[in-house]
């Protein structure tokens, strides 16, 4: 009996989803890189004061966190007045120092800090949260 000459049925290869999966994840990584701002854990805890009309901005650096006890944290490192001035020394004179203060922080603490830093001539900006926009963290 003569064997069949028909070619054997081709094995179907299962569809490959790996590359598509990697592409999607890569796009998500790029999204978070472009849109997000890397923050320290302490900085995410602060309940920022809210504004309504100011334009949106990214969380800038250098960032000075004012704690409720009056201590300062500059970009994750606790500093005093001399340490802060020394850390700001290498920066350009017109580089603004951004202040992160909780909305319930007594205004006295904020203004004392502003008074201490104002003589340096460096612009000071207070970081606020634009209200009415959904927050994703």
């Amino acid at each position: 009996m003569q064997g069949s000459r028909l070619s054997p049925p081709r094995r179907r290869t299962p569809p490959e989803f790996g590359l598509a999966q990697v592409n999607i994840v890569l796009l998500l990584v790029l999204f978070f890189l472009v849109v997000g701002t890397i923050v320290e854990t302490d900085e995410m805890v602060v309940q920022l004061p809210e504004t309504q009309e100011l334009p949106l901005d990214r969380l800038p650096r250098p960032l000075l966190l004012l704690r409720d006890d009056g201590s300062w944290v500059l970009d994750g490192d606790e500093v005093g007045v001399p340490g802060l001035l020394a850390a700001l020394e290498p920066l350009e004179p017109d580089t603004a120092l951004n202040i992160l203060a909780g909305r319930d922080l007594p205004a006295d603490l904020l203004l004392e800090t502003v008074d201490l830093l104002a003589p340096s001539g460096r612009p000071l900006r207070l970081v606020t949260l634009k209200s009415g926009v959904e927050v994703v963290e």
Partner: protein
Amino acid sequence: MAAGPSSVPVSIPDPRGGPKRSFALTPLADVMFQLLIFFMLSTSLAPYALLPLGGARATPAEQAAADQDASPSASETGPAIWTIGEGNVRIGRDVVLHDMLPLRVAQLQAAGAEDLILFTDARATTQDVVTVLEVVRAAGLTRIRLIGRPSRG
């Protein structure tokens, strides 16, 4: 009997190539997922806004312009003085809630006042200061002095 030529196996490479090896994407996907988790946990998508608090030294030209504006002939009225409290602002004898501030700022501008001095009382919070500063700046007043209470230390 003569022995025939010994047969030597010859391997000829298959021109079609061997079995196709598939590229392993699993390690790449693992790395990408770890990067994604890192960025998701460490970044914040909060809508930040920056409120200038002053502190920048004026350039000589700006200082000269400010001095000229501050001359008696240029200013019609003296600076207005407001005291920021908790949820309100004291303007003279009036206690004004934050909702009414735009109206009071407009009245201030209509009266020709250009300078505003803001004090804070003991109960004022950062949110109160931010609210007042935002309203005042939105109205176009730029000559604002923010003065805190004398340090307790």
